């Protein structure tokens, strides 16, 4: 049996549209951070010991209650034909470069991939997985792109630190920073931002 606080939080995590942050939970229930965290753990324990179909997911810096991915084969049928198709390899590669290198210009993405990434970038923008994050203060002031909160939710990540192999990729990017800049500046001479 869940206590009153845990019940309140459970209700919030079910009813919400997007992951609820710990701060927001405290604000709405009037409890402290620590008791909120403890309560979330009690909800998780209750859900798993009771064999429920729901789990608490830590996504994009917050919590929400979602169905167990193991049951996707059943639930998916409800939404057949309505679900987005999986991302293409080109889109995934493009997204990977932006995620680790952000904010990144299109020329930087294309420098790493060695291939035009125009349509992949457009798909990612349309699906709200990347967003324009400003302009780079360099000749031509190219647009900069970064990932969205939707990106974190889509891949089940709590925050960008949880990207796969973060340390390894950060090191690699540090080592290749000059290479990427050089290749990108060679590329950006040829093209301009056409997305907007």
């Amino acid at each position, binding site marked *: 049996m869940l206590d009153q606080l845990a019940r309140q939080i459970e209700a919030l995590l079910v009813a919400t549209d997007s992951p609820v942050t710990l701060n927001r939970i405290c604000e709405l229930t009037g409890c402290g951070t620590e008791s909120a965290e403890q309560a979330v753990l009690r909800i998780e324990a209750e859900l798993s010991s009771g064999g429920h179909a729901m789990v608490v997911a830590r996504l994009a810096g917050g919590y929400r209650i979602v169905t167990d991915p193991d049951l996707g084969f059943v639930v998916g049928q409800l939404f057949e034909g309505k679900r987005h198709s999986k991302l293409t390899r080109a889109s*995934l590669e493009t997204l990977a470069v932006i995620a680790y290198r952000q904010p990144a210009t299109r020329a930087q993405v294309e420098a790493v991939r*060695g291939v035009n990434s125009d349509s992949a970038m457009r798909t990612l923008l349309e699906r709200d997985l990347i967003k324009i994050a400003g302009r780079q203060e360099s000749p031509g002031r190219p647009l900069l792109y970064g990932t969205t909160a939707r990106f974190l939710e889509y891949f089940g990540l709590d925050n960008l630190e949880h990207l796969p192999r973060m340390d390894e*990729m950060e090191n690699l990017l540090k080592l290749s920073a000059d290479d990427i800049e050089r290749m990108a500046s060679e590329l950006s001479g040829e093209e301009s931002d056409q997305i907007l």
Partner: protein
Amino acid sequence: MSADSQRACRINIEDFEGPLDLLLFLIRRDELDVTTIYVAEVADQYLEYIREAEELNLDIAGEYLVMAATLTRMKSRMLLPVERALMEETEDPMETLMRHLVLYKAFKEVASDLRENESIWRDVFTPPGERERYKEDIIETDPGQASLLDLLLALENMTEKNVPPPRHRVRKPLLSLTDCVNVLDKLLPANVSRDFADALGKNARQAVVVSFFVAVLELVKRGWLTAEQRYPFADITIKRKEERWEVNA
């Protein structure tokens, strides 16, 4: 047809995400390590592959051809004796390419990790929450989905808010037409031609130039002044025609 080219035939260029992807494939197929690839060997295979694809009239993206050119250059560079000093000064393009391959390979692997995440989290469903009931408040619009009505409503919402009208500062004209004519009267002795731009000086502000230009037009209209321009955008030469200007007329 050699054994190599037969193998090349069986791989489809559309299966690759670009020249780097194809190179990685060729290297892996022959179980070569990215860090110790032999340029000549890989270059030959790559070029062979592109040639095959061309023979089959496949549409080959420009990036593939650029890579082919780069590899050919590397190969020829290896065959030619290069002066030591030059070698040390310029970076070995082979090393640059290998670094690029290592970088691309890492991103390729990360992309496939993300693919795994995607397939797990695609199978995760959330309760619809209050999304349905409060739909109007948070209409999410796909590109091209907003109608003219949506835009007008959005505009109306904006104007309803108490936004103070933007302030404009209206500047008093600094020079009247009469002022300009009086100045020109002094600047132009009889029968002397002057360059319009020169007469105003190099640093004249735009507003001043415009005011004087209008004055010149007015004077030309009255037949007191002639203005000549040899071709569009050339300097304008002005010359007094009438001895006395009745400014206030």
